[in-house]
Every structure is written in C-alpha cells, then in structure tokens.
C-alpha cells in the first residue's frame, strides 16, 4: 500500500486541517468538473469582487510563507517591485528537485486548477500582466494535467481575456524545463525562461521583484505557496492564521522518506508539528522500520544540515530551527536508521550537488567536485587523514567561517546557528558541503574508521 489513495501515491490524509490537499480523496480531483463542485474558482470570484490592493493586504496579513525553501512571506515579496515600472510578470516555480522533496508534483498532478486559481489571484492582487508556469521537464504527468486544466480553464473563461467577464485579463503560459536542479533558484529559472543556460544571476539585486524576466519586475513563487491562495481568498486571513502559529501560520506539505515504517507526504499544521510527531507519530510515519533506532535525519531537503535524535522535539517553526543549526527548506525529511553508512549517505547528497553545479562560481564548480572525489575515496576505503582535513578546507573555500550544525549531547557539542556565509552566488555550492560538514561533525568516528594508515616506506640505496 503506497498511501491512503491509490491515485495519490505516498499521500496520507489524516485527521488534520487541509488547505491545499482538500480534494485529494477524489480520484478525479484534477478535472474542472470536480474542482467546480468543490468550491473551485469561488476564491477568484470573491477576489475579483474586491479591489486588488485589498487582496494583496489579505495575503500580507496572512503571512503566507514561501514554501520553496527560503520561507520568505509572499505578500511582502509582491511588495518589493519598484514603483511605476510595468509590465510585471509572475513566474511559477514548479521545478521541484531538492533531494527529499515531493509535494509540488503532487499538487500539480492532483489539483492543477487550484494552482491555476492561485496564479490568477496572485496576478490580480500584485498587478502582474502575464504568468509563466514553469514545470520541471521530467514531470510528464504534471505537465499533462496542468496543460489539460489550462485548456479547460481557458475554454470556460477562467483564464485569458476578461476573466469571468471582469476587467481582469491575464494569460498563463505553460513552460517546461529540461533537467537542471539549479533552475529551481529563482534567477536561474528566469535565465532558463529567457532561453538561456540556467545559471543564477549575480546579486544584487537580491530579488527578481526588482529586475527579473526581460529585466522587468518579476515575482517568482513556488507551486505550494500559490496553491494556498484560493483557500485564503475564500476564507480570509483570519481563518488562515487561526491554523498554525503566529510566525508560521497555515499548513505545509512535508514528505518524510528513508528508513521509516510508512514514508509519506502529509499536510501538517505549521509551526507546532514536531519531528517526533512526524517520524514516530501513529498518524504519520509510525516509527523507524524493523524496530531499528533513529540515527540522524535531514530536516529540510538535501541542502539542510542534519539533525540527530536530540532535535526530535523541535517544531516546524523557522525561528527555532535556525538557532538549532539547520533550516526547514522545502519540507523534506529524510530519515536514517542505525544501520546507515553515514559517509556513504553523505556522498549520495554531495554527489548530487557536485553534479548539479552550473559551473558559474569556481568554489562550487571545483569545490563540489573535490568534495565528491575525496568523499568517494574515503567511502571506498582509500582515504587518508589528510583527506578529512581537506574536506573541511574545501568546504571553507565555499563557505568561509563557522558552518551551521546541530548540537549533540553525545559529543557534548553546542549548535552553530544557521545561516552560513558563502563565496558563491547561490546555494548549490554550500549545499554540497552541508552533508559533508554534518556527517563529519556528528559522526567523525565513522570516517576515522574508514581511513587507511599509510606508512612511508624508506627506500634503500637512494640516499645521497
């Protein structure tokens, strides 16, 4: 059994408030017919009946945190556009590919109209005149479902000229990628959308809201972020903030994978649900497989520094995870039980980031590859003590200074808080180092055990 509904592999509903997954129980949740029968497009109708600025305020008041990784409030992001510069665009980031993350694909496959309605509400509220919906190239079903939904929505008058007969007009253009993790970085996404190699742009400007697509103000929002808007438009900011905590309101999608009894994707209450709930709770993953013990877990996607059982009682609340030495990222928890070969596990992530480096910044292009090669050598039992030091040295050339890590009662170690400093434009380089640094800091003995002692053998007869 792979989840409670055969049509939504991995998804488990549970007895919890649901904002973005409310239609998942229906096998036909992706159709316009089902969408309309379940309050679909009523949030849009409600929004269009009010001035755009009021809808923008509603989103600001609800503090809808970005669900792509950085957790920046959407309403604030929309407000960063420079005065009087037109046109402005919306780019939807559906390039989900952070290791461990599985939620945006499900939202696109299961409820594409909800995403389309979210795009429309965002364009209306923030005055964006065209929307580009960028879906990861490898997601064939998501592309088919969103294309079908867009065709239905255009035909029925929900998208395009004079939406629902109003003065609001916007095109939503389906665009798709072709396989490159780094394109999930918003300025790389824009480069890709302009037809270029998907390399991040030099910052500042820090936000494409200032200078983005074609040099114009551009809002880049994640799929899940936008999927929240129809519910918000229907029920209002007060209802939204009544779920979760003040600083992390609403719900969020979290995928828990790895060595748990029941891996799954859950819509959880933001801010209060803890990692212990998720990994051990009966309504979530039900504990570690085969009665094994928890060794470590990645709390927020492959880029995040690791946690150990010491951090299990932390909630999904950014203000607590940062000081504890990691980040919530994109809602992806990867669980390792006591049988896990830690250096090897770290290698699977470092190899990913080394492979996905776009090559623009030297510390990432060279450093990531070095980290991968040194780590491979150690895993293969050919590493030396000098290799361990070199891992740290290379890591410091990507991220100078103290790198965040969790506290450890076993090692008597205090946490180093997030974030880190970086010598690269984007987070791919630091992400290659994060698993190495966590593994080395928290489980150094496993690396030491792999090291081969090599003695210098004196060669006779060559002394001068």
């Amino acid at each position: 059994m792979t989840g409670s509904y055969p049509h939504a592999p991995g998804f488990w509903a549970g007895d919890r408030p649901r904002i973005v997954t409310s239609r998942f129980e229906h096998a036909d949740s992706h159709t316009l017919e089902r969408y309309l029968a379940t309050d679909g497009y009523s949030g849009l109708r409600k929004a269009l009946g009010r001035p755009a600025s009021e809808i923008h305020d509603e989103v600001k008041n609800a503090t809808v945190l970005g669900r792509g990784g950085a957790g920046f409030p959407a309403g604030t992001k929309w407000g960063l556009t420079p005065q009087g510069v037109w046109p402005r665009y919306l780019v939807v980031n559906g390039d989900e590919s952070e290791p461990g993350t599985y939620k945006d694909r499900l939202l696109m496959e299961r409820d594409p109209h909800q995403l389309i309605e979210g795009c429309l509400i965002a364009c209306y509220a923030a005055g964006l005149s065209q929307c580009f919906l960028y879906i990861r190239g490898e997601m064939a079903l998501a592309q088919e479902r969103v294309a079908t939904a867009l065709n239905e929505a255009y035909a029925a008058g929900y998208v395009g000229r004079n939406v629902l007969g109003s003065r609001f007009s916007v095109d939503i253009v389906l665009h798709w990628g072709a396989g490159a993790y780094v394109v999930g970085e918003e300025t790389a996404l824009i480069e890709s959308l302009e037809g270029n190699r998907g390399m991040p742009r030099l910052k500042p400007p820090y936000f494409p809201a200032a200078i983005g697509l074609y040099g114009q103000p551009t809002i880049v929002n994640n799929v899940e972020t936008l999927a929240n808007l129809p519910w918000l438009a229907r029920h209002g900011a007060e209802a939204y903030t009544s779920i979760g905590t003040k600083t992390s309101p609403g719900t969020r999608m979290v995928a828990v994978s790895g060595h748990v009894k029941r891996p799954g994707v859950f819509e959880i209450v933001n801010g209060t649900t803890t990692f212990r709930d998720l990994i051990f709770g009966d309504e979530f993953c039900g504990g570690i497989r085969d009665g094994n013990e928890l060794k470590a877990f990645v709390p927020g996607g492959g880029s995040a520094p690791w946690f150990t059982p010491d951090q299990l009682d932390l909630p999904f609340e950014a203000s607590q995870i940062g000081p504890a030495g990691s980040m919530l990222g994109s809602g992806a928890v990867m669980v390792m039980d006591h049988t896990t070969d830690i250096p090897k596990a770290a290698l699977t992530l470092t190899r990913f980031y080394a492979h996905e480096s776009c090559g623009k910044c030297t510390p990432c292009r060279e450093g990531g590859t070095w980290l991968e090669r040194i780590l491979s050598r150690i895993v293969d039992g050919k590493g030396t003590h000098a290799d361990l030091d070199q891992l740290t040295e290379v890591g410091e050339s990507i991220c100078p200074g103290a790198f965040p890590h969790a506290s450890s009662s076993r090692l008597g170690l205090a946490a180093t808080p997030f974030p880190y400093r970086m010598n690269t434009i984007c987070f791919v380089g630091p992400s290659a180092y994060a698993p190495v640094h966590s593994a080395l800091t928290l489980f150094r003995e496993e690396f030491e055990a792999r090291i081969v002692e090599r003695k210098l053998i004196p060669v006779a007869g060559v002394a001068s």
Partner: protein
Amino acid sequence: MARLSEDNVRLAREIIARYPKARSATIPLLHLAQQQDGWVTNEAMAHIGDLVGATSAEVLGTATFYEMFKFEPVGKYVVNICGTMSCALMGAEDLMHHAEEKLGVRLGGTTSDGLITLERAECQAACTEAPCLQVNYRYRFRVTNADFDRLVDDLRAGRLDAEIPPHGTVARVRQSIPVDRAVGAVPPEAVTEPPVWLDGKAAL
C-alpha cells in the same frame, strides 16, 4: 532527421507567439525537435535558431546545459534510475547493479537492439516511493529487482506502448490557447501603464 517538419513549424510559431520575446521558446522548441527525431540534431538546432532569432551556437549552448536533451540517438526507452539519498537509502545501488546485469549494459549505455538506454538519475521527487525510476519520464515506484525484470520484459513485448510514448515525447497533452480568449504577448517595452484593474476598484 533534420529540420522541423511543416506541422512542427506551425506548432513552433504558435508557441513562440506566447512569449514577449521569441528566445524564451528555445527550450520548448528543443523538446519539439526531440519529440520529432528522438534526439536533437544539429539541423534542428540551426532551424530553432532561425525561428527564435538566435545563432545555432547559442541554441547549442542552451541545449547542452539540460540533461534531458540528447545529441546522439538513444534507445526508444530511456530508463532513469534515481540514485539520490532517499532512493540510495532504500537500495537504489543494488537496483542499478541488477539493471546493468539484466540489460547487459553499463549506466549510460544502450542495449544492442537499440531499445533501452539505462541512465543514473538524480532526485525525481518521489522520495517516499523509493527506490524509484522513470521510463521516458513515466514513474515506477518502490521498484524491486523482479519489478525491473517485468518492466523490461513488458517494454520488449510492446505491452506498455499505450502508456509510454517513445523517447522524445514528454507530455502528450499540449496547451492550446484559443485565439478569442488570448490576451496575447507583447514585448515588455510596449507596456508602460499599470494594468487596468489596478485602479482601486473591484474588477468584477
């Protein structure tokens, strides 16, 4: 094997017209070329350059950045086995070894009958269903060695033809914007005024 066909040029022009700048259609047109030929030929890239106003070198520069584009023929089916953390924790490495044995090729190779190209892939966003793989970007979840053998047998026997199109076709449904409903794309420099609905009044 070559430039885009007449039908595809028509489709290409329709796609280009959706963007404020033609260059934005580069990746969608590369997919179109790959759908036509199964891989991306030099002739197709030159043709795409003509259509979007770029040199063939610029199109090549973009194309080679992205892993899905192939510049030499590949199998009718490209099988991508995920090897990133969640899948690795759940046995992806064993599955890859088994796949190499079963198909008699190394990762990156194509079977001698030209049917299957085997590749190692990075995270496919199905981490709860590990280990997973894609065949021409169609998923298979929690794949055991026996599942893999059955998959290969089914592909060879043509039993999955209805579900899995030949390599090059990703989505089988295309967006089509009805002319009477389209707002239409204009170059950014042609827009200087805020959208009409930002006048402080409700739009409906």
